């Protein structure tokens, strides 16, 4: 039987096109590596730090000067296909429980859209969309070394372990409106640091298998003997998932607005392996505005409640309402940046254990000058001042009102 030339050429054409497709597809996966190395010189005038089981709000305490390797982090982004990316960030940080551990590991789905509607999602371990300042490699900030009070807490006790979906509408002029929601787990202990240690101000992000210090000698062991001596930020205690939902709006290159409501839906009467489940809910709002004369304004606010323990006469063992707000103003002049931020915070309690004091209020200022050279070398000069009043300090024979100051010089290499 004779095979017609046209049939043969049809087969050949199909073979060639499919070969071409597979050869072209083999350009995936595509890898991109980013990272940072952060060296510091610090002068501290503060109370013994919470990292040393105290109630000082910085990462370091006492009166001292020291030089240290503050952090080394690497982010590997793998483009798996036209719509899928995988991102993993691992870091070493001074005082971290495990020398090398993960801060984020997730898959991102972002299909192209030829309509104004855009859909996307993330699956894995990632920061909830709260901070508008931590927009740099490994969640660093281009404005300051030290995160705001709100973002410090996000770094310590908040991570989404689950899936997030986002839908947005893009206008022709570059504006966009979006809504998002996520289901999450492994965030049951969030709130424990706020209730027992209060707000803090630093640049440490908790990692997957991290252990964070709890204050000693303030009565935690007395009132909660089952509580372990440290808190594990990312564990699942009661098997109940939580969620957050919110929306965002953007005016291209100028205004960015984001708000979300979070509820980990924890059963506050459960405990596992020395870790209580804390029912934490909060409303977070953020606004970033690019103003004329190279000025940027970033403002965030948070208002929430955390509850833990059994009920007695209508009250819980721990019931603390927390709030915080920050306002940052930053100006660039070429490769120079000047930033000033004011933080304000407080915690109130209404539980049946006033002896386990959660109450506090305070405010602080952070001033930073940084210079970036050749896109990668960044020198930072920063001073952070905090003035806080926490009643629980009297357990440690400290005045409840404390002023703390941290001077820092940092060299950061970004790659």
């Amino acid at each position, binding site marked *: 039987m004779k095979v017609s030339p046209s049939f043969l050429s049809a087969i050949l054409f199909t073979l060639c096109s499919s070969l*071409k497709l597979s050869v*072209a597809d083999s*350009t*995936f996966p*595509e890898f991109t590596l*980013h*990272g*940072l190395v952060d060296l510091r010189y610090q002068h501290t005038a503060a109370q013994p730090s919470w990292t040393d089981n105290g109630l000082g709000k910085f990462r370091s305490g006492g009166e001292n000067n020291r030089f240290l390797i503050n952090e080394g982090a690497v*982010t590997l982004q793998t*483009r798996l296909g*036209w719509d899928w990316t995988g*991102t993993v960030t691992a870091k070493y940080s001074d005082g971290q429980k495990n020398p090398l551990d993960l801060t984020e590991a997730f898959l991102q789905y*972002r*299909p*192209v*859209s*030829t*309509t*104004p509607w855009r859909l*996307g999602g993330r699956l894995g371990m990632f920061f909830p*969309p709260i901070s*508008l300042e*931590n*927009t*740099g*490699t*490994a*969640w*660093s900030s*281009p404005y300051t070394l030290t995160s705001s009070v709100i973002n410090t807490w996000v770094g310590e006790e908040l991570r989404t372990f689950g899936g997030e979906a*986002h839908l*947005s509408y*893009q206008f*022709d002029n*570059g504006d966009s409106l*979006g809504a*998002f929601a996520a289901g999450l787990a492994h965030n049951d202990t969030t709130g424990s640091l706020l209730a027992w240690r209060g707000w803090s101000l630093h640049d440490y992000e908790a990692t997957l298998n991290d252990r964070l210090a709890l204050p000693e000698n303030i009565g935690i062991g007395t009132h909660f003997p089952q509580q372990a001596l440290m808190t594990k930020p990312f564990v699942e205690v009661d098997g109940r998932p939580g969620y957050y939902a919110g929306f*965002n709006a953007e005016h*291209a*290159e*100028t205004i960015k607005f984001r708000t979300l409501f979070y509820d980990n839906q924890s059963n506050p009467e459960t405990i596992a392996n020395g870790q209580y489940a804390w029912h934490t809910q909060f409303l977070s709002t953020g606004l970033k505005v*690019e103003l*004329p004369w190279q000025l940027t304004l970033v403002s965030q606010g948070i208002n929430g409640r955390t509850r833990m323990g059994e009920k007695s006469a209508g009250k819980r063992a721990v019931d603390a309402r927390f709030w915080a707000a920050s306002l940052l103003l930053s100006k660039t002049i070429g490769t120079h940046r000047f930033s000033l931020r004011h933080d304000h915070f407080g915690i109130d309690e209404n539980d049946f254990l006033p002896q386990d004091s959660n109450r506090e209020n305070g405010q602080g200022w952070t001033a930073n000058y940084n210079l*970036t050279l050749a*896109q*990668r070398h*960044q020198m930072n000069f920063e001073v952070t001042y905090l003035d806080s009043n926490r009643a629980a300090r009297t357990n440690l024979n400290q005045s409840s009102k404390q002023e703390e100051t941290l001077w820092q010089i940092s060299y*950061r290499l*970004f*790659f």
Partner: protein
Amino acid sequence: MANLLSPVFLKPLFGLLAALLVTPSIAETLLGDVSDDNGAPIADVVVTVMPTTDRLAVANSGKPVIVKLDQQSREFIPHVLPVRVGTPVIFPNSDDIQHHVYSFSSAKQFEIKLYTGTPAKPIVFDRPGVAALGCNIHDWMLSYVFVTDAPYFTKSDASGHWAVEVPPGEYRLSLWHPDASAPIALPNDTLRTPASAALRHTINIKARRQTGKPPETLQSQGYRDEF
């Protein structure tokens, strides 16, 4: 003595006269400068020149020329590309990484996967309007394809200068820039060639502009803050 009116001289004389009458006249140059309210020059301003009479046929002839919109160092080059309606645009991808170009503008909706080393088919921009192009892989990439049915058009350069050659006649000028509120109001938009002087236009431009360039520091490239 030769007679001046002899055929030897008359023929070329008539020929020259005929050539002058039949050939289209020497092209006129319209040129000008564009600056913002502070006097700083503005690049990428598209200047379109439309005849006030219906003589569009002159420039309509000829096959549409294929135009290039390149991807270099994760940036679209050029940032603004004015083209005639019906122009095919190719995306050569001079980078050694993939790009995924797309547009959802009403003027042209498309997506094209740019593999490295494999040339892609051209996209024909068949409707007048502005198409804003992005890359689905690199968020910051941005380019505008300005599709016009005007027979003559040009774009201002880095020093704000522009120049375009047109046949003598009366024309209506219009200006467009992605960061200026459209339409740009012009005081005298009708002019007749030859233009008496270089035209000067001042445009109000947004303070914060999307340049389409990668983020300035490696720190800002290392984290995606968007959804």
